[in-house]
């Protein structure tokens, strides 16, 4: 994307524009007004007397609103501005833009103010894959009081409806105002842009489905309540307080209200590509933020349970018991050109669903939900044992059945070249990655607790515990890379190890599948020079054939990944190593104003001095937003234990004093205090 973009969003409606507020989308750039995975405005360009406007400044006031200060003329000669133009915009249900024009001259002026408006109704996937070829019909209807931009393909209809608070002349290419402004006079127009999802008979299919009211005041009130309900974090390090605040606001922004849950919200994955529900991303984000905003977990569990697979569908890769990967609402999903209605091609969401339910209960004491989801949990466990075990040796494997549009790698490192042997070659399918076996182990251990305490089924609990112990024993035998002293990234169907050193071993600590006597070796690797850059743990270790400091899953550093690595280290008692990872990532957050990107480069900290953002990373992204919160939990040692909240802080000395007030849970609200005392040795390279 050329230049900087300004993004505002609410749920899965968002606007990405240039710093002037203008939108001039090309087929492969995610600029425009989007809702439900569809672009409802691809052109939105303001001119005054035929001249483009130049930005003096812009403010992102809140995540849902922005303000642009503009003057006519190109950047080189705007000194003579006798005219100011202010664009204030907000999303929330519809997209609203208030235009204010001020005449600073002592003489009156005649102005022709024009907004060019057009919509290509591109599906987000068409933009992502750069192949826009609409099969339906685009239409434009200019009426006396409105402009309709529409798209029709069979019964699939999307419409953009533009109206103005003051009379405008609407035509096929936009709308205009003819103004006479006296000296020092000000003119204001409010433009309303509605995105309509029309069913037969012209009814909006989304009517009445919103988490909060559409109006700005309701959004403002909602955000205030969201922040007031979350714990308060105070720290001697101001950047840490600011990062926490940024994360809370971004989490509020990323809340997404699915069509099928009547008003409750769960975290969407990230802007701009992933403003929808993802099994993996939503669950991992919920786990990260559980001590701060537990209500997201409940909703996520309910919606994922409601959409759990019930049948075999090769196109969607659905199986009974499988938890979904991704849901989409655009044209390509509707016409089955993409499988996201929903798509089930992930192997970690299902065990992670069980992990989240148990963790949520330990914090909230919500036994009702555990009882209500018993059927779904049993189905998920059956999926792990039966349908996911493609080799028949007790591990979770994947091999896509949708060979056309399905995902090759159905683990979190889902790019095509993320799984390799040490020589860099890629293994055949089916593949099994290590972290997923860890999740399965954890899922069984946790489900055993649920069976014993809530489902009144001690026999099932014992069976699950036996299976988990057996899995741990086999895993430690078959996945250990002898000459490296770590676990293989993956196995191929012949049982051969993908013997590279990767960040995935940190997830193994988190899951508890690591044999105690091997944990010190794993901890050593995680903060050692091959994996740890000084900022964080690389996805793939330096020295591996496919290592590349800006390789998407082959060397970059993912804040979310690191937050689980730190949690895992802490679980096995490596508090100092956990604090090392946490400090690195929280230091990096400073360079992004508290908003960690999806990934940044794996260059040594000493070399670059600042973290290098991965080029096309999504931001804000839910699990990057959740990372600082999980790191706080990890450093403070927050752990529910027998109905109480245990606080065992292990903070690095540089962190100073941190207090987290009003941590919600089954204990009501509890405060945690900590002071940095750990002296961290120099780790990494």
């Amino acid at each position, binding site marked *: 994307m050329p230049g900087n973009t300004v993004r505002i969003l609410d749920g899965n409606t968002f606007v990405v524009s240039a710093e002037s507020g203008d939108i001039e989308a090309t087929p492969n750039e995610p600029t425009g007004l989007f809702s439900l995975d569809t672009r409802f405005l691809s052109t939105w360009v303001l001119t005054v007397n035929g001249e483009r406007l130049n930005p003096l400044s812009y403010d992102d006031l809140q995540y849902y609103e922005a303000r642009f200060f503009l003057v006519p003329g190109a950047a080189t000669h705007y000194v003579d501005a006798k005219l100011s133009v202010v664009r204030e915009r907000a999303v929330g249900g519809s997209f609203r833009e208030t235009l204010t024009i001020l005449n600073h001259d002592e003489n009156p002026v005649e102005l022709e103010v024009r907004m060019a408006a057009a919509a290509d109704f591109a599906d987000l996937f068409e933009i992502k894959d750069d192949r826009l070829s609409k099969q339906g019909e685009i239409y434009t209807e200019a009426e006396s009081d409105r402009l309709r931009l529409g798209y029709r393909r069979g019964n*699939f209809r999307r419409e953009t409806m533009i109206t103005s608070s003051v009379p405008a002349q609407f035509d096929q290419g936009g709308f205009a105002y003819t103004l006479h402004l006296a000296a020092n006079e000000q003119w204001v127009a409010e433009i309303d842009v509605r995105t309509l999802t029309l069913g037969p008979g012209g009814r909006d299919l989304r009517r009445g489905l919103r988490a909060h009211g559409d109006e700005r005041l309701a959004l403002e009130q909602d955000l205030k309540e969201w922040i007031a309900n979350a714990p308060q974090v105070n720290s001697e390090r101001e950047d840490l307080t600011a990062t926490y605040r940024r994360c809370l606001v971004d989490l509020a922004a990323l809340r997404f209200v699915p069509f099928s849950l009547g008003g409750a919200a769960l975290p969407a994955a990230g802007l701009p590509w992933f403003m929808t529900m993802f099994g993996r991303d939503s669950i991992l984000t919920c786990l990260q933020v559980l001590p701060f905003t537990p209500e997201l977990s409940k909703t996520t569990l309910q919606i994922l349970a409601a959409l759990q697979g019930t049948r075999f569908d090769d196109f969607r890769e659905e199986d009974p018991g499988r938890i979904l990967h991704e849901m989409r609402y655009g044209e390509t999903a509707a016409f089955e050109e993409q499988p996201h209605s929903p798509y089930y091609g992930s192997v970690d969401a299902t065990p992670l669903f069980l992990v989240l339910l148990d963790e949520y209960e330990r914090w909230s004491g919500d036994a009702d939900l555990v009882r209500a989801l018993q059927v779904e949990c049993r189905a998920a466990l059956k999926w792990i044992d039966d349908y996911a075990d493609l080799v028949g040796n007790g591990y979770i494997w994947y091999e896509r059945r949708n060979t056309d549009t399905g995902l090759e790698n159905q683990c979190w490192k889902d790019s095509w070249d993320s799984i390799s042997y040490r020589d860099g070659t890629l293994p055949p399918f089916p593949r099994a990655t290590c972290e997923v076996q860890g999740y399965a182990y954890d899922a069984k251990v946790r489900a055993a607790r649920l069976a014993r305490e809530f489902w009144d089924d001690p026999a099932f609990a014992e069976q699950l515990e036996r299976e988990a112990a057996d899995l741990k024993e086999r895993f430690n035998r078959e996945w250990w890379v002898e000459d490296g002293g770590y676990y293989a990234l993956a196995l191929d169907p012949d049982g051969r190890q993908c013997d590279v050193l990767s960040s995935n071993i940190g997830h193994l600590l988190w899951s508890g599948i690591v044999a105690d006597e091997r944990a010190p070796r794993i901890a050593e690797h995680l903060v050692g020079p091959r994996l740890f850059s000084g900022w964080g743990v690389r996805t793939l270790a330096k020295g591996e054939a496919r290592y590349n400091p800006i390789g998407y899953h082959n060397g970059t550093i993912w804040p979310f990944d690191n937050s689980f690595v730190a949690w895992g280290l802490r679980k096995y008692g490596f508090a100092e190593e956990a604090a090392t990872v946490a400090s690195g990532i929280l230091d990096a957050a400073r360079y992004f104003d508290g908003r960690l990107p999806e990934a940044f480069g794996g260059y040594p900290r000493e070399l670059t001095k600042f973290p290098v953002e991965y080029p096309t990373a999504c931001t804000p992204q839910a699990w990057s937003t959740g990372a600082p919160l999980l790191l706080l939990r990890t450093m403070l040692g927050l752990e529910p234990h027998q109905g109480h909240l245990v606080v065992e802080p292990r903070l690095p000395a540089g962190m100073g004093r941190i207090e987290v007030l009003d941590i919600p849970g089954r204990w009501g609200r509890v405060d945690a205090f900590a002071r940095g005392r750990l002296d961290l040795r120099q780790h990494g390279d």
Partner: protein
Amino acid sequence: MSEATTAFFKDLDRRGCEPLLMKITATVRFDLHEGAHTSHWFVRIDRGQLRVSREDRAADAVIGLSPELFEELAAGREHGIAASLRGDLTVSGDPRLFVQVERLFPGDPRSRGPRRVVEREVR
């Protein structure tokens, strides 16, 4: 023409209890529009217990579609959620109920399900 439709509802009615709907007590009406004529299937769900009738009564969710599309859904050849995204199927009332009831439709008969490497089907 409407064989799969009739068989689908007969089967629901005979099934008695559907574990997938154990958490639900509600009514759902399917309106099958054919020109000016609309035929109705009324499903009462009482914590998973199902009863089907042909009544035209107020329901918590009303799902409108063509008899042809329903026939395809009942045979697993079309997908309910994709059809609703296309606008070929409309839901008024509580959309959650549609998502739950949609799971009662069978999978695509052409789907083979997961396959083990030794070519033994898992399903």
